């Protein structure tokens, strides 16, 4: 309340005034309360998500204990270990980041440092278009067009690396169009827009003086980027990458369609697998009782993971943005 009266302070004519809070008409105070309530709704919803989903999943957590991180997922035998899905989530998200981050940072640098403004605008539109393509359309294209096409490439690579020590274990057979790697590629397409736009915002906060200084010392553009931009924006870009990681972990429908739907832990990246959101999407319809509790519990784990990642990422991005403007 006190902050409000202070802010409105300059509007009060000098004189023997009562405290402003007493003067404010009822409508004005009501409006403030409604606005505050709407803002608080964000916190309320987040708390409700944590509470209600944990409650529905409680039987899984209590009966399994640490067994929730077990290897075996067999609903028919009432075994609900989530390790294969956590593994699949980590693998697909890692593939997505390895593919998407260099490209996104490259486009962000292209937009901020290379092309003139009138050319940057249409490029931004194109990136925005990429963000508007719905997840289910990526999945439909992934399963009917992309996976059958890339399956040939996988099997060629697979037969070429069979027997080679590390490569054989990663890229050897079994191979399939719908696999960890296909899901990783599709996720990479989907997180590129957010990583690009956040990196661009971070890079744009590098002051002209720093950049001109580097050029004045005779630096090439690449040397300017590594010498002036990178030290300044590495924190912010790390935050952008973490936000991309959060998206890649939670993206559901596209992954559910192209990941191959198999609860396995394998080093073979071209083999079918499962990640946390896709198993929830694919198996929830037929689930009840303990099975459903386990699937909702997977959602709770996913919520916890993504919230932690997002909190860290936002803290980093926010701090680097403040440094930029200061």
């Amino acid at each position, binding site marked *: 309340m006190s902050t409000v009266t202070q802010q409105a302070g300059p509007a009060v004519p000098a004189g023997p005034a009562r405290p402003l809070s007493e003067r404010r008409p009822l*409508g004005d105070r009501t409006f403030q309360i409604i606005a505050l309530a*709407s803002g608080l709704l964000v916190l309320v919803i987040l708390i*409700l998500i944590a509470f209600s989903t944990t409650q529905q999943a409680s039987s899984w957590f209590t009966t399994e204990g640490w067994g929730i991180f077990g290897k075996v997922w067999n609903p028919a035998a009432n075994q609900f270990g989530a390790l294969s899905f956590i593994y699949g989530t980590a693998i697909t998200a890692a593939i997505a980041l390895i593919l998407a981050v260099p490209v996104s940072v490259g486009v962000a640098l292209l937009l901020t440092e290379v092309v003139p403004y009138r050319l940057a605008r249409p490029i931004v539109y194109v990136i925005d278009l990429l963000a*508007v*393509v719905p997840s289910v*359309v990526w999945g439909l294209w992934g399963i009917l067009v992309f996976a059958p096409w890339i399956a040939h490439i996988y099997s060629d690579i697979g037969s070429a690396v069979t027997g080679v020590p590390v490569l054989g274990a990663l890229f050897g057979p079994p191979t399939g169009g719908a696999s960890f790697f296909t899901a990783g590629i599709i996720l990479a397409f989907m997180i590129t827009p957010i990583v690009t736009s956040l990196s661009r915002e971070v890079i744009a906060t590098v002051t002209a003086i720093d950049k001109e200084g580097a050029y004045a010392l005779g630096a090439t553009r*690449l040397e300017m980027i590594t010498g002036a931009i990178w030290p300044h924006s590495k924190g912010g870009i790390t935050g952008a990458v973490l936000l991309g990681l959060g998206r890649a972990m*939670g993206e559901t429908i596209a992954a559910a369609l192209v990941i191959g739907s198999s609860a396995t832990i394998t080093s073979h990246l071209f083999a079918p697998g499962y990640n946390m959101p896709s198993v929830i999407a694919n198996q929830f319809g037929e689930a009840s009782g303990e099975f459903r509790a386990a699937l909702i519990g997977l959602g709770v784990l996913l919520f916890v993971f993504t919230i932690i990642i997002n909190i860290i990422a*936002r803290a980093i991005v926010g701090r680097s943005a403040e440094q930029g403007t200061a």
Partner: protein
Amino acid sequence: MAAITEPQLGPHLEEPAGWRRTKNRIATILMVLSFVLVIIPLGFVLYTVIAKGISIISWQFLTGPIPPQVAPASEGGIGPAILGTIEITAVAALMAVPLGVLGAIYLNEYGGKGVLARLIGFFSDVMTGVPSIVMGLFLFSIWVLHFGFSGFAGALALACLMLPVVIRSTDEMLKLVPNPLREGSYALGATKARVTMTVVLPTAIGGIVSGALLAVARAAGETAPLLFTILTVTAANPNIFSGANTAIPSQIFANATSPYVGAQGRAWGAALTLIVIAFVLMIAARIVTARFTRFSR
């Protein structure tokens, strides 16, 4: 900006020679290449959806009932799904947009730099990162288990996804409204609520509407939050408050794994419909921005 990005505009110095120049060229080529890598999948997806979808789409497809999956692509349509998407997205927007705008008003007009406002702002950002499937599970837990499947449950899930997006985009727009406008109104004796409603909001309305349209465009394409809330049926259900419903994305998801060519064909047609809806909303957002923006960065 342009002057900085184009060092050759300055006095013509001797170009760095040899390896340094080559490395610089390679870096530039890699940057252009990364953009090419972004366009290829986008072009590929759009081309496939248009090529496979355009032959399916007709008036009958857009309005017809959803046939069994075995039916050939020429039969039936996605009428009930379009109805469902319009109902559910509209109700979601009616809930999320006013609440989001009010929340942003709190952040920007009342909260200022206070702890509470910064906390709400921070967690709005964090909330945009909550996976959409978690919103589906959330609404399943607190709504569907008590009141059953309905379009409204789906609308609530979409509203939860849209709320933080609307708060953030509106907040950005309110920050652009120049303070002298507010101060002028206060000087005339207006209350804060009146200043907000009659001066601040009208000034920022273009950006607010545009941000809301983009949030709606995103929400209309969401599938995961609908899976456990509306339960994808094939019959049309104009009553959003009771009974299972359907939507375009759910229908595409159901058809995508179908072995029947007809069902796959209808999925492409539905995908094209969905993309067109999203693009129309996006273009509308750009037009609104262009027409009503009074202050920009």
